[in-house]
């Protein structure tokens, strides 16, 4: 039997899916064990149990100076910036992308401009953003918007252009105006694609968020990681990295669920 025709059953599939996670964990535990055996005060690879204890401490014990549980405040601050940035990108990306896709006039006007804009490396703009918008929340949100908006616009305008011409002609023969075609024919069809574009943008968005927080902030997940780096506090860093990964995964899952729930007709596109 050919390899391409061998499909795992349910139990084997679950086992195979869990295998890489287990392998990484075991490799880490063994490495940590070896280093700690040689030097009990080694900080580079803290034992998994130490990370667990640190995580518990971070999540439950308030900071001695401020009396706040910094872990949750960091999470809230970062999620707020991320949500705001991605939300603004999604909103404007949808509007501009739809306009570019559906109106030839706007396409001639903006498509090339957006294509050029999207080539600017957003992190190179970060100093400019700090200078213009200051070191507060605004510059971080703007960085995420600058980093993700051009991609969303290009993706959405492309998807709008991919709507079969037949459907647009059909809508016209049913008497629809340009506005009705945009709102009732094109928009619903690109909405699932918007969610896909946002899912794809989340990776870069996290990157820009953590970069901005690492450079100038006083709260946030990225800020904390770069702060405790000075103390070689690997247990804290690893806790935060795992937490960020879990958050990113949950947001992705939530978006996919939303797309499936509200756009059941787009099954094959998701």
């Amino acid at each position, binding site marked *: 039997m050919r390899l391409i025709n061998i499909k795992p059953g349910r139990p084997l599939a679950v086992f195979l899916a869990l295998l890489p996670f287990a392998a990484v964990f075991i490799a880490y535990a063994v490495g940590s064990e070896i280093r700690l055996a040689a030097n009990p005060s080694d900080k580079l690879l803290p034992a998994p149990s130490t990370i667990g204890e640190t995580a518990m401490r971070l999540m439950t014990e308030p900071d001695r100076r401020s009396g706040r549980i910094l872990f949750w405040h960091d999470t809230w601050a970062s999620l707020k910036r991320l949500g705001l940035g991605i939300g603004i990108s999604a909103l404007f990306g949808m509007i501009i992308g739809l306009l570019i896709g559906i109106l030839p006039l706007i396409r001639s006007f903006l498509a090339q401009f957006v294509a050029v804009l999207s080539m600017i490396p957003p992190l190179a703009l970060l100093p400019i953003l700090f200078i213009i918008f200051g070191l507060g929340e605004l510059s971080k949100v703007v960085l995420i918007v600058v980093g993700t908006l051009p991609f969303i616009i290009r993706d959405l305008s492309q998807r709008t252009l991919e709507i079969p011409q037949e459907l647009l002609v059909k809508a016209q*023969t049913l008497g629809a105006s340009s506005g009705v075609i945009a709102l009732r*024919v094109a928009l619903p069809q690109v909405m699932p694609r918007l969610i896909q574009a946002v899912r794809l943008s989340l990776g870069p968005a996290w990157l820009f968020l953590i970069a901005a927080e690492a450079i100038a902030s006083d709260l946030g997940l990225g800020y904390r990681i770069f702060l405790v780096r000075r103390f070689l506090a690997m247990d804290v860093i690893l806790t935060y990295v795992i937490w960020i990964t879990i958050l990113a995964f949950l947001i992705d899952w939530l978006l996919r669920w939303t797309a499936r729930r509200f756009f059941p007709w787009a099954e094959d596109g998701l």
Partner: protein
Amino acid sequence: MSFVTVTDVFQSYGRRPIIERINVSIDEGEFISIVGASGCGKSTFLRLLLAQERPMRGEISIDGAPPAREPGLDRGIVFQRYSVFPHLTVRENVVAGECLRTRWGRFFGAERKAARARADEVLARCGLDHVAGQYPATLSGGMQQRLAIGQALAAKPRVLLLDEPFGALDPGTRLSMHDFLQDLRAETGMTVFMVTHDLEEAFKLGDRVLVFDKHRWDPHDPNAYGATITYDFDARDGGIPFQTLQEDTNVFHAT
């Protein structure tokens, strides 16, 4: 009085002529089948009728109105594929035939209820009432085409254009679609243009069969000339109206 008048229509893409010197006039309520080889401008002619494109020369007018500049309510269209909206349920697709022309593209309240009731009637007529709540992607090809025709008719166009509507269907489904279309036509008496590859279908359904072909052919440059209407058959009564005429006039009827 002719209803659809096509006067001296030329169309070319770039330097390549597609159709040339099309002159034809069609009465209201006629069913016109358009046949011809691939690449002979049948679909181009249909797009011109639809006003999706405008001819280089000549003009097409419906009921004496000035030539249309873009597709509109007076011409309905059913394509071979992509004729129904994938994001609307079957019932909403039929409602869309009426509501897209409104300012916001949807009905509210009592109007919405009435439109849904009318849509259900159309669906029952098309034999689709049992799938009213489903999305078109779950329907078979024949059901999707029935839905597309129902949707086009819900908008009550003056001319219905069909672009190889049954080309992707299996022979059995195709026959039942013929019956469906003939019934609808008997009810509405609408003017229909249908492009098809199937000669039998063209003669079975059509009152007239227009054949598109190139009347001049340059073997060194096959694209040098466009196609035009080379035959215009009367297809009523199985294509033998003349004999019927004789029967009617020369045979004594005992009534």
